[in-house]
Structures are given as C-alpha cells and as structure tokens.
C-alpha cells in the first residue's frame, strides 16, 4: 500500500466559511466602505430625509479637516482617556488581586465570593448604570449621595469608571483564575517546602507565570475602554455633568442622529475606527511580546 497521505480535494471548507464571509462582507466591509464614501462627500441641499432628496457631492478632505478641528471631539477623547486611565489599572489590578486571593489555600467562602464577584458580568452596562445611577443620585442614594457629589467635575470620571470596573472585574478574575489553575502544583509544593510565604509565592512565582494572561486581560480592558458609551449615555438623563457629546461615540451618535450631519459623523467614525484599531493593534503586539517572554 502506498503510504502517501493525499489530501482529498473538497469544496467543504469554502462552504463552511461562506456564512461568516457573507456576514463579514454585508455587516463589516459594506458599512465600513459606505462610511468611507460618505466621509469624502458633502450634502448639497440641507434638510430633507436621510439623503433621499438631497445630492451628495465630492468634498475631498473637508470633513476630515472639520473633524480634526472639532474641539468638542478632542475633549471627548480626553474624557475617554481619563476614564480609561482609571478603569484599566483598576480592573486588571482588582481582578489579579481577587484571583490570587482565591488561590490562597485555606481561604474561606471562596466559592460564594468568586460567584458574587463574577455576577456583574451578566448585568448589561445600561442596567448596571441604572443601578449605580440610583446609588449616586442624591434623592435615592444609600451611599451618601446627599453629602458627596458623585457628579462633580472630577467625581463624574470616577463615577463612570466605577461602573465599568464593577462590570469587568469578575470576567477578568475568572480568566486569571483559570490561568492560575494551569500552574503545576509541584511548583507550589516546592516553594512551600522552601519556606516561601503566600505573599512571596504570589509575587515571585504566580504573577510572573500569569503575565500572558494578565496582558490578555489588559487587552480586553483597553478594547472595552475605547467603546465607552453605555455608562455615560445612560447617566446623562440623571445628571447635567454629562453632555450629549461626552465621549467620541456619543459625539458620533449626536452628529448622525441629532444634527443629521452624516458626513461629519462618517468622517469621525472612520478616524475613530482607524485610531482604535491602531491602539488595539499596538496593545495586542504588547500582549504577544509579553506572552513570548
């Protein structure tokens, strides 16, 4: 018998990827391309319904110039970055802390606390914001909202960040717990016999072994921070501290649906998407270099 392994010719792989490819074309490439086209156009006659009675004319880079000169967008990016600067270290740090604590032998109530910390993951951002919103609101606050102003010019960043952290810690904690479980138990045993304390083990053995998983969690959190929308948008009806253009995605929504300036919104979307892809690509390279080291 000939021992040559011959791959059979089959059309199956093409059929299997077909649904995904069609969905990608229809819901990623076509909308993205359409936004790109709109971003280079301007509406000739203002008013009327979405592009039905008016004509679109080529406008070159005018929209992009207007977007880059849009100070409100830049302030929105600044606010998004500020919230991210709080959310990313807080989420990853707390997730790591809880995962390490759960890994300490003889810790009590591990099952219950693990579940409790994970549960907010199942709560939609909008619903979480409604809950925290009522906790912040002076009229209903059980956590001192009548003494502390959760919507002050500085406080509002922490109030928004807190909701994101609350929703994200549990998922990242579980990811880190799972990664910890793959650390061979002999490593623990050997360290214990050498008289290593739990704290020493966490710092010198577990955290270095967890580095790829920690980097992965950081990437998830960076991606989430770029998409900041639900929390500030839902807090807006509760407080004047949040404008309708508070973060870039709210600004894009506002341009598209309130001001009906689709071309400006499209140019902002294109720039924002490119910037977001760049940031997450850089973050993922960082993750890979961490995973390799």
């Amino acid at each position, binding site marked *: 018998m000939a021992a040559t*392994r011959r791959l*059979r010719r*089959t059309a*199956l*792989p093409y059929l*299997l*990827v077909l*649904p*995904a*490819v069609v*969905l*990608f074309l229809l*819901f*990623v490439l076509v909308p*993205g391309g*359409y*936004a790109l086209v709109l971003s280079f156009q301007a509406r000739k006659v203002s008013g009327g319904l979405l592009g039905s009675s008016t004509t679109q004319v080529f406008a070159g880079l005018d929209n992009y110039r207007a977007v880059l000169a849009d100070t409100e967008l830049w302030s929105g990016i600044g606010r998004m970055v500020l919230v991210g600067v709080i959310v990313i270290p807080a989420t990853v740090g707390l997730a790591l*802390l*809880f995962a390490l*604590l759960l890994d300490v032998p*003889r810790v009590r*109530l591990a099952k219950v*606390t693990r579940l409790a910390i994970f*549960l907010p*993951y199942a*709560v*939609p951002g*909008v*619903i979480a914001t*409604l*809950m925290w*919103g*009522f*906790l912040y609101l002076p009229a*209903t*606050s059980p956590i001192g909202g009548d003494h502390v102003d959760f919507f002050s010019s500085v406080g509002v960043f922490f109030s928004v960040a807190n909701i994101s952290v*609350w929703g994200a*810690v549990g998922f990242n904690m*579980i*990811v880190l717990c*799972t*990664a910890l479980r*793959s650390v061979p138990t002999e490593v623990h045993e050997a360290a214990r*016999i050498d008289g290593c304390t*739990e704290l020493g083990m966490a710092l010198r053995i577990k955290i270095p072994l967890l580095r*790829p*998983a920690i980097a*992965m969690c950081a990437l998830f959190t960076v*991606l989430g921070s770029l*998409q900041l929308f*639900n929390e500030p*948008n839902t807090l807006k*009806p509760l407080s004047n501290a949040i404008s309708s253009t508070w973060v870039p*995605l709210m600004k894009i929504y506002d341009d598209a649906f309130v001001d009906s300036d*689709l071309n400006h919104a*499209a140019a902002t*979307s294109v720039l924002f*998407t490119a910037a977001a*892809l760049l940031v*997450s690509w850089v973050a993922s390279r960082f993750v890979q270099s961490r995973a390799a080291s």
Partner: protein
Amino acid sequence: MTVVRRRPAPLPTLLLVLGALYCVVPTLWILVAATKSRTELFSTSTYLPSFGGGLLSNLADLSAYDGGIFWHWMLNSFGYAAIGGVAASLVSAAAGYALAMYRFRGRTLLFNVILAGVLLPQIVLAIPQYLVLSKVGLAGSYLAVLLPQLFNPYGIYLCRIYAAASVPQTLLEAGRLDGAGEFRLFATVGLRLMTPGLVTVFLLQFIAIWNNFLLPFVMTSDDGKFPLTVGLYSLLRHGAAEASLYSLVITGTLLAVLPVIVLFLALQRYWRLDLVSGAVRG
C-alpha cells in the same frame, strides 16, 4: 517533618468578602428599593425594605405600563440573545472548523481578517450598519437588530483554537478511510467534539447580545422591538421628567437582572474559560 500547617487566612477572606459586597450591593439595593412605593422611595431609610405591598403594586404598575410593554422587551431580549447566540455559534463553529482542519485558498487572508475583526471595536460599526440597512429598507426590523450580531470574529477565533485542540486529524482520516463524506465528518465528528467549546462561545455571545445597547438603540425606534436595555433606557428618559417613573425603572431593573443571574447559576459548570485565557492551545 517540616510541613507547616497553615492557619486559616483571615485577611484574604476579608478582602474577598469586601469585593463580593462591592459586587452585590447594587443588586441588593435595587431589590430593597423595588419593595418601596413611589412616596417611600424618597422618604424612608434607604437600606430597609418596605413591607407595605410596594413590590406588588410596583410589579402591577410595571406590567400595566403601556399595555405590558415591559414583558415584551424581556421576550425580545431573550429572542435576540438566544437566536443570535445559536446562529452566531454555528457560523463560528463552521468557519473555525474549516480554518483549523483544512488548508484552502484564502485561508491565511481570512484568518488575518478575523484577527483584525477581533481588535475592531464592533460598536463603531453600528451607525454605518444602520445607514446601509436603511438604504435597503431593513432598518427598524427585528432582522436589523439580529443580523449584524451574527458575525463574531472572536467566536470564530475561539472555535478555531478549540477545533485544533479537540478534533484529531487522525480521527478524520479514519473516517475518510471508512468512506464518510467531508460534511458528515464535520456534522457528526467535528461538531460533537467541539460541543464544550461551543457552549462557551454561545454563552459569551448570548451575554454580548443581551448586554448590547447601541446597536438596537440605533436600529429601531419602534418600542415594540426594543430589548430590555433600550426599553429601560427609554423609560428612564421619560422618568427624568416624571420622578414617579423611577419606581418603575427600579422594578424593571430588578426583573431584568434576575433571569440572567439564574441562567448563569444554572449554566455555570459549562463554562470553559480556559479557552479565553489561552490555556487551550491548538
């Protein structure tokens, strides 16, 4: 023997309990607040539940609001998340299996596109998706909310990893020698071996759709097609003018949180998050 018997660890336990409290307090407070009538909400001690029948009247008010539309939203949310979750998992399973098990033309390109898709914040596509769907007259329909959520690059990526780790090529070779067709191998061997990973992909996508706000918010202005997130948000926006609606929003929030928590507790043991943490290698 130098084996040290370890004392119970009070400090780690305390820290974990504090973390757990931080995570459950908002839900507990919503539970307490939902028992209060409209006037009690702003007048009574915030941590004490009320037994004056406030919960029942809140439930009745919420169910009566706008002809029981709240329950409609709940049903919509389940519909979107369940149908979208199953369909997206099947699409991901098929593509992930093909990418892992076959070498074919365009495979590398496709995989790179998928990786870029994982990094792309999907939410920025919602408005362009709306513009395209409104051109073809689909905006405002159930399909407009459902279809864009069926392409899940992260799900495809996870399925590829899981297929490579769980479906041995040798098994497929054996099946081929026995004369099984390629599709039959996928449907009977591949899908079956991939099931644990698929459950995780399904749950991740179910939660993602259940939690999604911007896409349905953009796609539909017909409140009969809202999922819970958009419905409660619209209720809150009306409530900004009428404080009496706050009790309804609070009760609705409680009812929105409970079913997912129950679903989660029930499906807990099916989670295979080692897939997400990179512990499964294909």
